[in-house]
Structures are given as structure tokens and as C-alpha cells.
């Protein structure tokens, strides 16, 4: 549904995205992740024909965004970041205006606008001025707008930013349901959300794609997949040195909690070092009060891939 080839966008003096290549298939929910300024919104604005790329090609729903921009836009529902709206229009009035603009025929207008109001929970504010709505409700108006012409494809730029936890859950539920019939490209900074909704993920950093896979694969392929925590009293032994000798352990760090020593071990991907750690502790007669393994999360993947930013 979305095909991107060598897409590059340079702003005055700055490259926002460079040689992006990816595809989103029909029915996929693709998560688009990356730190601030990575180029997510830039990519989405190009795909929605809002601005042209500096070079490269892209097609949306089978239509080239250059040559068939109007058709591409007809088949696309786009929700921009920060959801700019006409504040002086009323919710129903705005949605009807947008539906007409996107070619919803007059006889289907009431049905479509009614449906999206229902779907996005806008019934109780339908007569309000958009300027008088809270941020969450404005976000919903943006989502309703993206859906009103029954597009095959949705591009949503941070659809859940600024929502309360209940609303986030509702929107997530909505996106998951939409994913049954629609193809969705969605950007967000809320990682658990991505793990729950997306079938695939692209991680982009400084305008380049760093990873593109299913959430499960990304997590399991992580180089430093797992961390092991050991709380013990090692007595006179040098715990760090001993633990580092265990095969599979890459790194050990130590903090203290009262007279307990807390070792944090980083292990190689796929290696479970806990039995070895336990054997070492019992051989050396260390007192142990906790031995646990922390599963790598998408957050670890994200930090590992993009942490170069902080250096």
C-alpha cells in the first residue's frame, strides 16, 4: 500500500531524511518510531503529498504521489501532528466540510459523518465549537476527519499524544479495530502502545532507517538482550571479577543497598546465565536474596538503536 524508494528531503541546510526505503503491505499496522527530529513527520508529510521530497519516489495505494497526487490523497486518510483545525467551526459542520472536500457524495454524507462521530466518541460534543474542545477531543476530531471518506490507508502522526490514559486505551482499541480493514502507518513515542498494536516497526534515527521488523524479532535479536540482577553478600571475594568469568556475561556493574551488593549483569542475546550465576554463588557460599532476569523490551531496543544521539 505504501512504497518508498530512496526518499530524501533536505530543508535549507539540513537533511531531514536520507534515502529511505520501505514498504507497508495491505492490512499491516506499521509503527514508525524514532527520537525527536528523526524525520518521522517529514516522511509522513511527503507521503500525504503535503510537500514534495528533494529526491526519490513514493507511492500510496498504488498511486505515485507526484503523478497521481489527487488519487493518492483520495485513498489516504492523514492526521497531521498537533492536529490543526479551524477553531471557529462546529464539530459536525467541520466533518461535513471535510467529507465534501474528500468527495463523499451528498447522499452518504449524514451516514458517514454520523459513523465517524460514533466511532470516535464525538456524539456529545457534535455541536460545540472546535476551539472550545479539549486537546483530546480535538485529537478525536482529527482522527474522525482522517476516517470520514473511508480511506484504504491511514497515516497518523502521533495520534495519542496528549491524551489521558483512558483515551489512549480507547484510541489504541480503535486503531486495532481499524487495522482489520485498513493499512495504517502510525508514529508515536509510546512504546508499549506499539508493542500492542503494530505488526511491524520501523525505527528511524537522524533520517535513516535503523531497523525494520516485527516487535518480537526486534526484541529477541537485540545484542544485549537481557539483564540479570543479583543481590548478594560476596564477603571478601571480588564479585565483579568472578561474575565476569562466566561465559555469556558481557558486563557487570555494582551498586550497594545497605550491606547488600547489587550486581547488574548484561548477558549476550539468547544466553541464560542464571544457572551459572547460582552455581558460582553457592560454590563461594555467598548469601543470595535475589536472582532475577529482566526481559528486554522495545524500549531497550529503541535506546540501543538511537542512544548515539546523547553522546
Amino acid at each position, binding site marked *: 500500500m505504501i512504497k518508498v524508494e530512496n526518499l530524501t528531503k533536505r530543508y535549507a541546510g539540513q537533511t531531514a531524511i536520507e534515502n529511505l526505503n520501505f514498504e507497508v503491505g495491505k492490512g499491516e499496522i506499521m509503527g514508525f518510531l524514532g527520537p525527536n527530529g528523526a524525520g518521522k513527520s517529514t516522511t509522513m508529510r511527503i507521503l500525504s*503529498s503535503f510537500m514534495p521530497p528533494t529526491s526519490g519516489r513514493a507511492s500510496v495505494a498504488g498511486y505515485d504521489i507526484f503523478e497521481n497526487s489527487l488519487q493518492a490523497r483520495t485513498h*489516504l486518510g492523514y492526521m497531521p501532528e498537533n492536529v490543526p483545525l*479551524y477553531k471557529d467551526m462546529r464539530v459536525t459542520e467541520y466533518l461535513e*466540510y471535510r467529507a*465534501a*472536500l474528500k468527495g463523499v457524495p451528498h447522499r452518504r454524507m449524514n451516514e458517514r459523518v454520523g459513523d465517524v462521530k460514533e466511532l470516535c466518541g464525538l456524539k456529545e460534543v457534535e455541536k460545540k465549537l472546535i476551539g472550545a474542545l479539549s486537546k483530546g477531543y480535538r485529537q478525536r476530531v482529527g482522527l474522525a476527519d482522517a476516517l470520514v471518506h473511508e480511506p484504504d490507508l491511514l497515516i497518523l502522526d502521533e495520534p495519542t499524544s496528549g491524551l489521558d490514559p483512558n483515551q489512549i486505551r480507547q484510541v489504541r482499541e480503535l486503531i486495532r479495530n481499524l487495522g482489520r480493514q485498513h493499512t495504517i502507518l502510525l508514529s508515536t513515542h509510546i512504546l508499549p502502545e506499539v508493542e500492542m498494536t503494530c505488526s511491524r516497526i520501523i525505527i528511524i534515527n537522524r533520517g535513516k532507517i535503523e531497523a525494520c521488523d516485527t516487535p518480537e524479532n526486534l526484541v529477541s535479536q537485540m545484542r544485549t538482550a537481557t539483564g540479570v540482577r543479583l543481590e548478594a553478600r560476596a564477603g571478601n571475594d571480588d564479585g565483579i571479577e568472578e561474575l565476569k568469568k562466566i561465559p555469556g556475561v558481557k558486563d557487570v556493574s555494582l551498586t550497594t543497598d545497605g550491606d547488600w551488593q547489587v550486581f547488574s549483569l548484561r548477558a549476550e542475546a539468547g544466553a541464560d546465565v542464571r544457572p551459572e550465576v547460582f552455581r558460582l554463588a553457592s560454590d563461594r557460599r555467598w548469601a543470595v536474596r535475589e536472582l532475577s532476569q529482566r526481559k528486554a523490551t522495545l524500549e531497550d531496543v529503541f535506546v540501543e538503536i538511537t542512544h548515539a544521539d546523547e553522546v
Partner: protein
Amino acid sequence: MTKFFTLLSREIRSYFYSPIAYIVLVFFLLVSGVDFYFQVSFMNQRAVEYSVQEAFFNSVFFWFAFVLIFPLITMRLFAEEFKLGTIEPLMTAPVRDLQVVLAKYFGALIFYVILWIPTAFYFVIFQAVTHEPAGSSTGAYLGSYLMLVLLGMFYISIGCFASVLTRNQIVAAIISFAVITLLFFFGLVQFILLDVGSETRQLLGYFSAIEQMGTLSRGQIDTRPIVLYVSMTIVMLTFTYQAFQSRKWRL
């Protein structure tokens, strides 16, 4: 075509959402009402050779109000959309750039025409009260309002262009005000240049809105201003369209 009308209807309605429309309407009614009152009382005091209608459309009051309304009704057209970011949902909907430019232009033009409708009643009321004609002929009315529409077409296209250049409404208003005032006073140059020949003066006169209004409001329909303003409007709208498209490359 239906998309054009959808856009157009929002443009016209949007004037009435904002207080600007009502302020402009009131300001305009006030100035034109005072103008009308002055002309009538002036004529009550002495005999003149022109009609009320002719005087109304050629007074200082009239021109003062006239050049001020254009920045007010055009400044927000594009600048506001750029500033609020609503240009993004607008241009990612399946509409053509040209449809948007023309809808904005005609929306402003229609609002401008709406502003003038009440002034027609001045003449109707005058006639009903005094039982005397306010204008010298039907042609004089037609000529005056034709001139208003022609000038309006051109000045609104200038305002459109100014608004597409910036995201700041005040800047847009200042640009269009400066350009319109300059163009307007350009027509007065002939009165300053004393040592130019009468031919040059006549040539300048063709471009003078005041002179054209003088002619048309007497009922002498002249095709030269029609050609001049229609073609200038098309030129300005072409510029606006080009600037609007190139906005994409500047982003």
C-alpha cells in the same frame, strides 16, 4: 467543481465566524452613511451640477473607506492558514491548488460585493423621501457599481498575493495597503507634474481610478478600464497561484 463550491462556501462563511467581518461591515456602513449624509446636506446648501449618486462615489470619504477595506478582507486568506497549520489538512485533501486559490479569491470578492449592497438602499430611500432621482441615469448607477467591482477585483487579487507571501496577517495587511495606496495615488500624479504635456497627462489619467470613476459614474461606460482591471487581476492571480505552489518547495 463541487469541491470548489465547498471551499467557496467555507471561505464566505468564515468571514462571518470572525469579528473582522462585522467590524468591516459596521465601519463601512458608517463611513458610507456619513459620506451620503454630507453629500446630501452639501447639496441642500448650494446648487451643484452633479447628482447625489455621482457625488457619493467621488468623495474623499468614499476613497478613504475604499482603500482601507481591502487589507482587512484579504489579509487572513492564506496567512492565517499558514500560521495555524490548517493548510496541512487542507492541502492533503484531494483538492487542486488552483481550486483553493480561486475559492479564496472569489470568497473575498463576494464578501466585498455584500459590503456594497446596503449602499444601493441609500439611493432608493433618497428617492422615496425626496421624490427626486438620486442619479442622473440608470447607466450612472451601473457605471459606478461596475467600477467598484472592477477595482475590487484587482485590489482583492493584490491582497491575495500579499497574503500568500507570509504567515503573518499584519505583514500581509501592510503589504497590500502599501501597494494599493501607491497604485491609487499613482493616478493623482498628473496633478503634481505640472510641466508634462497634456498627452502624458491624459495617458496617466487612463490609469487613474479616480478619473475612471468620474467617467463611469456619469454613466459613460468606457471599455478601457474593464480591459485594464480584468487583465491586471488575471496577472495578479497568476502570481498568487505561482507563489502558492512554490510554497511547497520553500517548506
